[in-house]
């Protein structure tokens, strides 16, 4: 009996040792694959349509420089980035939202970038470069693409009902109600809606989409104080007034003004505009390609967002090129960034039959409408240049956006609550978020 137990123990030890060696072998394999100095691993957060555009851009880069690209269109970008971060082996280059820069920098995921080290840096405006400055005053991204929210509106419905595109909030409401109640598609059924609203709190959509209204109402989410710190600003009179207006008119009033399911809709599920049953959608210009294909160019137009009490500002955002920390391929990364911001690189990304990944070019020698021969892009570019505000990029804005979205979604869901006290509560939450980052004024 003793002999048998001892031999089993020995067998177990051998098995575990074998497992350990096998595991080590697996680990060794992946190291050698990632080490090629002439290949860059590049991630973008793209659906298949946008990824097809990136493929053409990277093919042109490889043809020009000889540097190969291992391209990964990653949809679940943040989860997979965290996985790679935990193994301290980041992709060489990442192209993702400008609003995520603070989040990535706060985790040490990015290399600092000297603008002078990028060939062609002088063709990017100072305004664009200023959007990639981190908390410590250094640059952490290369501007790549910018965009501004604009209003997509059914011009065939406007014509049929004898209406003009709205230029103020009140006019927008009137048009939305007309779209909802006057049968603009002529099918005899009450199956049309005024506008599309992605109002879910999931991933911060309510704050992302609703921020244009906040800007137009004169509100801010957080306010910089000029010394590198911020204070929460969602308890201002302008914020209370704006959120109350949104609640009363978009979510808690006549429900036909917005599409069904607005409170749990995210952009991928809020397809009513392209499905042809909603009349307006304030969204990014990357959808122009999609809507041309699904709805038809002749049916809708792109107009500036209607103005609120404080003006017509919309949310501006875009993508930056980020370099992964400690990749050891700085020269190759700089070469890719230089190509991406060059007139050639930007043009390839702006045109073609797939979704454009450069919307408004950061290269100031290019004009969005001219490159595309499409006047609608002038509306977008003008909105970006003249009437837009970004989320602050330097802080880790992710928790701030998420908490704001949670609060807005709750206000819009429970219509009877007092907006002022709920926003005061949000302000305290935002103060906690800023304090966690040592950014509270």
């Amino acid at each position: 009996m003793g002999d048998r137990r001892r031999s089993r123990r020995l067998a177990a030890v051998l098995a575990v040792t074998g497992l350990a060696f096998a595991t080590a072998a697996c680990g060794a394999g992946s190291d050698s694959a990632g080490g090629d100095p002439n290949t860059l691993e590049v991630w973008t957060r793209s659906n298949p349509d946008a990824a097809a555009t990136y493929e053409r851009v990277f093919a042109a880069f490889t043809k020009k420089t000889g540097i190969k690209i291992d391209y990964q269109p990653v949809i679940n970008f943040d989860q997979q980035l965290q996985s790679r971060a935990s193994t301290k082996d980041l992709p060489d280059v990442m192209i993702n939202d400008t609003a995520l820069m603070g989040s990535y920098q706060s985790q040490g995921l990015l290399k600092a970038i000297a603008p002078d080290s990028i060939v062609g840096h002088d063709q990017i405006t100072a305004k664009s470069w200023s959007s990639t400055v981190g908390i410590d005053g250094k640059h952490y991204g290369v501007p790549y693409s910018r965009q501004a929210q604009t209003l997509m509106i059914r011009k065939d419905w406007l014509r049929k009902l004898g209406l003009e595109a709205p230029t103020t909030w009140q006019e927008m409401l009137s048009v939305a109600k007309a779209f909802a109640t006057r049968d603009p598609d002529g099918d005899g059924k009450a199956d049309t809606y005024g506008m599309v609203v992605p109002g879910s709190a999931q991933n911060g959509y309510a704050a992302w989409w609703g921020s244009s209204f906040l800007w137009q109402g004169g509100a801010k989410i957080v306010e910089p104080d000029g010394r590198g710190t911020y204070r929460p600003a969602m308890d201002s009179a302008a914020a209370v007034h704006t959120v109350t207006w949104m609640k009363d008119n978009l979510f808690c009033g006549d429900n036909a003004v917005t599409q069904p399911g607005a409170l749990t809709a995210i952009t991928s599920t809020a397809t009513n505009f392209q499905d042809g049953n909603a009349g307006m959608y304030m969204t990014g210009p990357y959808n122009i390609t999609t809507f041309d294909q699904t709805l038809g160019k002749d049916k809708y137009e792109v107009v500036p967002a209607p103005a609120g009490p404080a003006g017509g500002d919309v949310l501006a955002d875009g993508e930056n090129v980020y370099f992964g920390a400690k990749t050891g391929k700085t020269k190759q990364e700089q070469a890719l960034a230089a190509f991406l911001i060059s007139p050639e690189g930007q043009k390839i990304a702006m045109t073609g039959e797939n979704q454009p990944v450069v919307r408004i070019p950061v290269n100031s020698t290019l004009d969005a409408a001219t490159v595309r021969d499409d006047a609608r892009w002038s509306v977008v570019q003008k909105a970006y240049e003249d009437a837009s505000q970004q989320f602050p990029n330097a802080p880790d804005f992710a928790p701030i956006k998420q908490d704001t979205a949670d609060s807005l979604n709750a206000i819009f869901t429970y219509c009877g609550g007092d907006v002022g006290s709920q926003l005061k509560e949000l302000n305290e939450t935002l103060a906690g978020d800023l304090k966690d980052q040592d950014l509270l004024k």
Partner: protein
Amino acid sequence: MTATVTTPAARGAFKARKVFNKKALVPWLFLAPGLLLALVFKFWPMAKGVWLSFFDVRPFLGDRWTGLDNYTRVLTDHRFQDAIGHTLVLGIGQSLGAIFLGFVLALLLEGQARSLKIVRTAVFLPAVTATAVVGELWRLMYYPTSDGLINSGLNFFGIGPVQFLDNPDLALWSTMAMGIWIWAPYNMVIIMAGLAGVDRSLYEAAAMDGVSLWQRLRYVTLPAIRPALGIVLTLAAIRGLRVFTEVYVLTGGGPAGSTEVWMTRAYTLGFTRNDIGGASAASVVLLCVTLLLTVTVNYFRKRGDVR
């Protein structure tokens, strides 16, 4: 004589030792691939997760030890507390509903007829369909206008369109209904196996005594399938608190956080707010609670068996 006796003994001892070694090693060799997979994809990540829950996770800046701060912060977060409440309601309701419906289906579909086999296969399909796909289908079924599948049916009875997912009072129950639909067929199969094992003579004896259908169910069927119910309850205890995909696809935790559950909250902490330490702490607490619940269910099951 002495030489003859010694030689066989020595030879026998040597042979026995060699046989033991070979026999002991073979099972481990067969188990090795499975153990390797479990080690790499389950136990190592689990250990790493526990380790990370004590840190402010910043891989490139150096993780900062925070001891139990992550646990304190997560457990005192009111949104997390709400999420625990929703998880308990959803988990309990979903489990009990799925067991009850599974039991009903098992009674209805038990038997040897060929047509029953086809129906059983069809009824089992939810158990083998990807949860994300089921979530998308149910979101379409719950569409909140009179065009929606379920609202069309309600409209037939004169009931106006119901906002299944946008009404915070209904969203959790709507999610529960989907969960019951997903898990009932799985429970049905286990309970059906239990029913197949019931001694037929017990039914014959009951029929002789003239008992009612309900009495037969109460005194013959239910006691007989207690082992199957025990298994089903154990699985429910493990699974009930770990709901994620159903909620994430259907509502994303909305509206107004009314369907936020433990796992969607941990997911938000980790990937939307980049708080990996907090997410790890939330997951570790869930692991401990699940283990405790499983042990408790097993304890009562065994005690019941003894009685």
